């Protein structure tokens, strides 16, 4: 069964510009998908719909076969969204408090919240900073904290919106390593990026968007050939092994 599906999903902004138009996509559980396209092609708008953060102008989104609006709380705890700017996602006074934000909202017991916080912080290797204030963290650590905040809700799908932006080489490697580990632990991964050379070797599938529409969809090997038509840089080298991790 498709874990996530969109049917004729359309989003038109109040000023009549088109955000996304007639998107029909299906995602299988366990898939690693890259969502790519130039700035303003509608990637972020699309994934905000996956999380029920926007109301479609037309069409709908199904999670596990049911419309996401049927149970938004369940949808949002099952589909984690790691925002582009971690600064916007961090709301706690301490690292641990921020990770606890989601589970507490779900109404879990204090012991369960604590267990999840510890588990999530261990997973991203930030346990030693649990009592630090978030704003003293480095860019890479902040992004890992944002990931931990999403992990603590124990989602099935994790969506990353431009997770490499503004990170240095070690930062990119840390975050990439993290994403791969999550994928190995049976999370479905949707990753928005236009920096294909950093990650393409790990993906099963790449979707390219242009001006609000899906223009290419398939395995990296197939898609990569025509990618330059849509304003993306064609990376050099072997698609199968293309990664910033050794």
């Amino acid at each position, binding site marked *: 069964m498709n874990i996530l599906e969109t049917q004729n999903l359309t989003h038109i*902004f*109040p000023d009549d510009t088109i*955000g996304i138009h007639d998107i029909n996509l299906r995602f299988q559980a366990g898939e690693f998908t890259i969502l790519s396209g130039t700035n303003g092609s509608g990637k972020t708008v699309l994934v*905000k719909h996956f999380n029920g*953060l*926007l*109301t479609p102008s037309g069409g709908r989104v199904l999670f596990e076969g049911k419309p996401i609006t049927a149970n*938004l709380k369940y949808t949002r705890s099952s589909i984690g969204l790691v925002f582009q700017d971690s600064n916007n996602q961090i709301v706690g006074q301490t690292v641990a408090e921020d990770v606890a934000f989601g589970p507490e909202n779900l109404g879990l017991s204090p012991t369960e919240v604590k267990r999840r916080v510890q588990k999530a912080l261990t997973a991203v290797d930030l346990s030693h900073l649990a009592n630090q204030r978030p704003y003293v963290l480095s860019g890479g650590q902040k992004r890992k904290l944002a990931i931990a905040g999403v992990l603590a809700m124990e989602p099935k799908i994790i969506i990353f919106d431009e997770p490499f932006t503004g990170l240095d080489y070690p930062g990119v490697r840390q975050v990439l390593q993290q994403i791969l580990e999550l994928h190995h632990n049976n999370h479905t991964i949707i990753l928005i990026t236009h920096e294909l050379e950093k990650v393409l070797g790990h993906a099963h599938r790449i979707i390219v968007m242009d001006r609000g529409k899906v223009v290419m969809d398939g395995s990296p090997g197939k898609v990569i050939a025509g990618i330059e038509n849509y304003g993306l840089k064609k990376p050099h080298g072997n698609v199968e092994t293309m990664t910033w991790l050794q």
Partner: protein
Amino acid sequence: MAKTSPLNLRMTVYSSLFTALIIIGGYLSFPIPMNPVPVVLSDFFVLLAGLLLGASWGFTSVAMFIFLGALGLPVFAGGKAGLAVIVGPTGGFLFGFLAAAAVIGWIAGKGKISVLKDLVASFIAGVIVIYSFGVIGIMLVLKTTLLKALAIGVLPFLPGAVIKVIAAVILAQVLRPLLQPQFKSNANSNDSNDNQ
């Protein structure tokens, strides 16, 4: 209290944003030519909060600001904190801020929005309300005469206050459209969120 619409969440975040701006405004100072006292921007953000968020959310922002200060956090102008400031000679201005945000939101948000109404509201709130409270505070705490209170608490700040009123009104015109939701969000209602 149990359930909140996303619209409310958005206003909660904006209200906190203005609390933060009012605090930061106390750390930012601008020199004014031919004037001995530099101008801080706290009251400027109080005016903007009233204009952009409306009476109740604007009031909430200022109330939060004073509450945090009362708890001893260094949020008042120049990093001061605590009851020392609230009961001190400048404490009247803080209560003036509180009244100003409500007054400006109330006048400017009533009926149709217009630049002229913004200007009148900002002038009443930003000059008359804030400084009346300020003068009363000075007179009560320092036990001085009205004239002395005016001389130390109002006169040096008046040119700055007028500039801030005008700047707040101009900025409010440019910033209002930004407060309209960029996306059609899952909120139950989306209409007029800047003057409820």
